[in-house]
């Protein structure tokens, strides 16, 4: 069972002159945090808008919870935080959550319990009765998140959720997302903050000019195959000899040694040799690049030569 699936989803604007999304295929499974990355204008927001029926595809199909996206009844199981969302500024935070909850089909008694919980969760409890025209950008963003969660959705679409939020707030949003994931919710995230994405996401897709150029598991992307960071306490003088013996290339990085082995077996033989010579291994960890490094590299590789 997939939560989201798209088949050759395509969207053109301006009578086909602007290609927002081209032949996009995707599957998102339940309980996953899936992030969409890409430079500005890559088609990330367009994809979310297509999935939510805010705009219509030129070609292709998509399903949410097995239902065609044309069928809005599945919207009762999802929440959405729009980029640059706009709430009626003459209302208080409580009233906004109440009205948007009513529009989500929720009853009054449920909302009267749910609203204080959500305001507490997004640290706006003291501001519940204040008209939102007095809110800062970060507070509006947190209110937007509360609104997206009003119906306790199974699937959450978040378009730049940490935009305008301070570092402490960002960490809180991250914790909320991880807590939701623990409860089996699926989260579809659109963010420019790659460090945040790296910390929370299970899978990512990278878009460029409306085309999918990479998709997969985050940890696999940021791990460099057969490369490890090694830190030893003593006997550093013996290391070149051992490295030569196994024909392992190495380079120093900070206080660690970056070694590239041919496979796991060679790594284990190398460790055995270190132990045999009584070298104290303090750490040996798979080497990773940051998601930002990976993202930039993917974009550069996708440039036509």
């Amino acid at each position, binding site marked *: 069972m997939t939560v989201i699936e798209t088949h050759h989803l395509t969207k053109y604007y301006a009578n086909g002159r602007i290609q927002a999304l081209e032949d996009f295929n995707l599957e998102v499974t339940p309980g996953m945090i899936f992030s969409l990355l890409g430079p500005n204008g890559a088609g990330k927001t367009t994809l979310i808008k297509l999935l939510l029926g*805010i705009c219509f595809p030129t070609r292709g199909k998509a399903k949410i919870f097995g239902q065609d996206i044309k069928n*809005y009844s599945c919207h009762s199981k999802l929440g959405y935080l*729009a980029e640059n*969302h706009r709430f009626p500024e*003459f209302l208080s935070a409580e009233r906004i959550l109440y*009205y948007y909850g009513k*529009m*989500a*089909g929720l009853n009054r008694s449920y909302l009267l319990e749910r609203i204080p919980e959500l305001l507490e969760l997004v640290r706006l409890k003291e501001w519940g009765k204040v008209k939102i025209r007095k809110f800062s950008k970060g507070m509006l963003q947190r209110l937007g998140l509360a609104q997206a969660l009003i119906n306790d959705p199974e699937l959450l679409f978040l378009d730049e959720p940490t935009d305008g939020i301070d570092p402490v707030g960002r960490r809180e949003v991250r914790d909320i997302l991880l807590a939701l994931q623990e409860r089996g919710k699926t989260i579809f995230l659109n963010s420019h903050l790659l460090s945040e994405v790296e910390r929370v996401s299970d899978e990512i897709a990278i878009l460029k000019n409306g085309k999918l150029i990479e998709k997969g598991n985050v940890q696999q992307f940021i791990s460099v195959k057969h490369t490890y960071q090694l830190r030893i306490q003593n006997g550093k003088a013996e290391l070149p000899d051992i490295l030569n013996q196994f024909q392992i290339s190495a380079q120093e990085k900070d206080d660690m040694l970056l070694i590239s082995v041919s496979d796991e077996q060679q790594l284990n033989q190398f460790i055995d040799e270190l132990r045999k010579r009584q070298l104290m291994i303090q750490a040996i960890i798979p080497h990773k690049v940051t998601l930002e490094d990976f993202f930039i590299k993917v974009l550069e590789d996708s440039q036509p030569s």
Partner: protein
Amino acid sequence: MNSKILALIQITFRESLAKKTFIAFFGISTLICLLFMFALNLDIVDGMQSSVALFGQESKELIDIEMLIFKIESAVAVLLFSGGLFMSLFATSGLIPSLMQTGTVDLLISKPLGRFHILLGRYLGAVAIVGFNVFYLVIFSWLILSLKTGFWHAGFLMAGIMIVLTFAILYALMTLLGILTRSGAFSLMITYLILFFSPLLLQRDQIYALLSGKIWGILLDSFYYFLPKTAELGNITRLLVQGQPVFSWMPLWTSVVFGILMLTTSTYIFSRKNF
């Protein structure tokens, strides 16, 4: 579905109140009624008015009280019809463009609501707030007149229904224009044009005489039958208030058809619009 649409109507109601124009409308309505209450003095003896004073000016002529009430009520109804419509259209002109703003419409569409329901909620919200204001004014002034004269003529309340109905027809046009252009000012200007063009079309026989060529006649007739006939709707309102027979309902039903057509077209375009 009803509670979802009701939430949309409530938000529209709150938005209208926040824009202050309706507070001004409400204030003016109250002021008119209060003036009416204190400025109009009637002495009635055996169903005949023995003296009437408006703003201290006393009339000595004896007039049948029923006739007098009809005259006052029809004058108030016509005043409400033109003034009420003018103010109502002005006050609601921004509601559709504000609904269409990016960041607002996205959130509404993401809810389990059809686009038709979103538009209907907005439309009904605008009609509801205008209805509230118009009926406040109509019922308040009717109560004052009836209490002062002891003559309870329910026909005056028809003025409220006719004003709200005419507003609903014109607002359907404003909804379509708002969707197409996303401009409150533009849709208001065109709707005012239609509102004031209607009395001209009523005089189209005199216009034919000034024009050469049959095509102009056909064109003017087409405009006349297609567009809402606000001048005639005002006249129907006056006749209903005076309790006189209405000889032709054509202006009413053709205007209602125009409103339904505008609303259907608006829904069609809104349902297919990319946001």
